[in-house]
């Protein structure tokens, strides 16, 4: 089959690789009908997540048709149309039973590596380095899905692939980010980053009843897409903290969402430290969000961080009694209700797609997306 393989920093290629096989009784094989490049794939593309190996197949946003199931998969059958969450969950451990799906104890075969980094291992992820299990990803024609009796969501309605695909990651991720803000009816939510997760966070904040959403970015087409959702938009090139104060009567936003993560721009200090490998992540947005948030507010972090950061204003977070919420998305909490929201027409997730290309052209699409060229916000790939 064809698959997008990582071969080094800024070097991904579509190659011919063997088809995936059932390896465990609870596996399924999915024929991919639609997949996408995620903003977090760019961290891999830029070589910022350690333990990727040349030849690793990327991709964690995908959907398709079940073509084979293992002997223990009873609730999913050949021919089912499914969308697959990017986190892999066993469904039986302490964490899965508490619906903390992304913290699954049993899905990461390289758990000990992850535990060195994080203290305890979290769930395996598709196509996201050997810290997260080294599972082959879904930017391919076929993919093996472990614990296929738990993750995949069956879709029977007549919705198109492009309306369903983003239930695999970015829609639930944006939604969890907004839900983590515990939004009250008169609240103002500030959201840094108008990439795909930011776009879904903006719309989710409104779905959850926010009175006002202020989005921060400096890429014109992304700012425009945020405006279309009803957000006020601030350029990140301006004095963001002063403008946020002005737009909230001096109080500050009730909650702040960092939908940017480890590769934020704006701080030469962090650029240099990251290049010198003195710091793995550039937490420019996180610092700003902590400083801007009102007293007693919440900073919610869906943007990915992978390692060590410094000069985070912990004193401000402590002094203002902030709540910090973060982590990979507990996908299965959200997939069903958000599918329902799409079926009811409350949101059409395909709004975010700017580029539709064949899997064969994926390498070029990575480059275009990485450089934010050609108005690129979200790339959907079809095999």
């Amino acid at each position, binding site marked *: 089959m064809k698959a997008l393989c990582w071969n080094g920093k800024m070097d991904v290629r579509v190659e011919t690789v063997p088809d*995936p096989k059932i*390896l465990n009784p609870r596996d399924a094989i999915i024929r991919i009908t639609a997949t996408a490049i995620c903003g977090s794939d760019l961290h891999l593309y830029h070589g910022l997540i350690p333990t990727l190996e040349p030849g690793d197949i990327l991709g964690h946003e995908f959907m398709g048709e079940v073509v084979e199931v293992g002997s223990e998969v009873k609730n999913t059958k050949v021919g089912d149309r499914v969308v697959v969450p990017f986190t892999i969950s066993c469904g039986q451990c302490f964490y899965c039973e508490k619906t903390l799906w992304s913290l699954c104890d049993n899905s990461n075969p390289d758990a000990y590596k992850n535990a060195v980094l994080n203290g305890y291992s979290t769930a395996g992820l598709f196509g996201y380095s050997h810290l997260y299990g080294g*599972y082959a990803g879904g930017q391919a024609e076929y993919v093996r899905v472990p614990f296929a009796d738990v993750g995949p969501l069956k879709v029977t309605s007549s919705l198109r692939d492009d309306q369903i695909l983003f239930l695999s990651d970015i829609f639930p991720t944006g939604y969890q980010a907004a839900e983590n803000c515990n939004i009250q009816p008169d609240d103002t939510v500030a959201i840094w980053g108008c990439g795909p997760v930011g776009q879904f966070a903006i719309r989710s904040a409104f779905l959850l009843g926010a009175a006002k959403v202020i989005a921060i970015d400096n890429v014109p087409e992304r700012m425009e897409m945020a405006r279309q959702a009803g957000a006020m938009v601030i350029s990140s090139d301006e004095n963001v903290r002063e403008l946020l104060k002005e737009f909230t009567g001096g109080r500050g936003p009730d909650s702040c969402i960092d939908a940017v993560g480890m590769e934020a721009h704006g701080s030469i200090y962090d650029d240099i430290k990251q290049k010198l490998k003195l710091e793995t992540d550039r937490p420019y947005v996180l610092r700003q969000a902590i400083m801007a948030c009102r007293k007693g507010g919440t900073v919610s972090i869906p943007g990915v961080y992978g390692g060590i950061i410094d000069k985070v204003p912990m004193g401000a977070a402590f002094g203002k009694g902030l709540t910090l919420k973060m982590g990979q998305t507990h996908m299965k909490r959200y997939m069903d209700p958000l599918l329902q929201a799409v079926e009811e027409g409350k949101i059409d997730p395909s709004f975010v797609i700017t580029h539709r290309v064949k899997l064969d052209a994926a390498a070029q699409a990575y480059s275009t997306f990485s450089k934010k060229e050609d108005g690129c916000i979200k790339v959907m790939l079809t095999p």
Partner: protein
Amino acid sequence: MDEINSGSETHPDSPSVQGNHGIKVTKSCTIKSSRETLYAFWRKFENLPLFMNGLVSVTQNGNSSHWIAKSPGGKKVEWDAVVINETLNELIAWRTVEGSDVSHAGSVRFKPAPGNRGTEVTVKFEYDAPGGKLAAKLAKITGKEPSQQVEKDLTHFKAVIETGEFPTTQGQPKGEK
């Protein structure tokens, strides 16, 4: 080390590993299952190759057992062990008999975890690495260090019990380097 005779000065009469170059490992994990189930699974030593890396087979004969493993270099390693301490549903401790290729002593203890979290499983292991502590240090660098191996095995034990399989990517597709 109350469960196993560690070969330290406090147990001079029943050393399981000679001299002072034994390497001690202690690892714990919590498994969502009952003490009875876990104890029964473990006590049937024939089950252990299901989750212990490198272990090929174990055959039991009363209190004694014969173990066959493959070393990281692919060499066959064999030893005989005896159960030296046992409490139903709580504790199993064993020790290799003299003349074994790999001299070691080990124990596994099962304790109820709080609430409905299952059972706390603690493995203690004392191990006479060929080449002693220096070899173990080198092994740590090359990723074949016993403490890491015990942790991996315990993780596999947990996965087998909780999910019926253990996660793997062995045999999945990959691009050519």
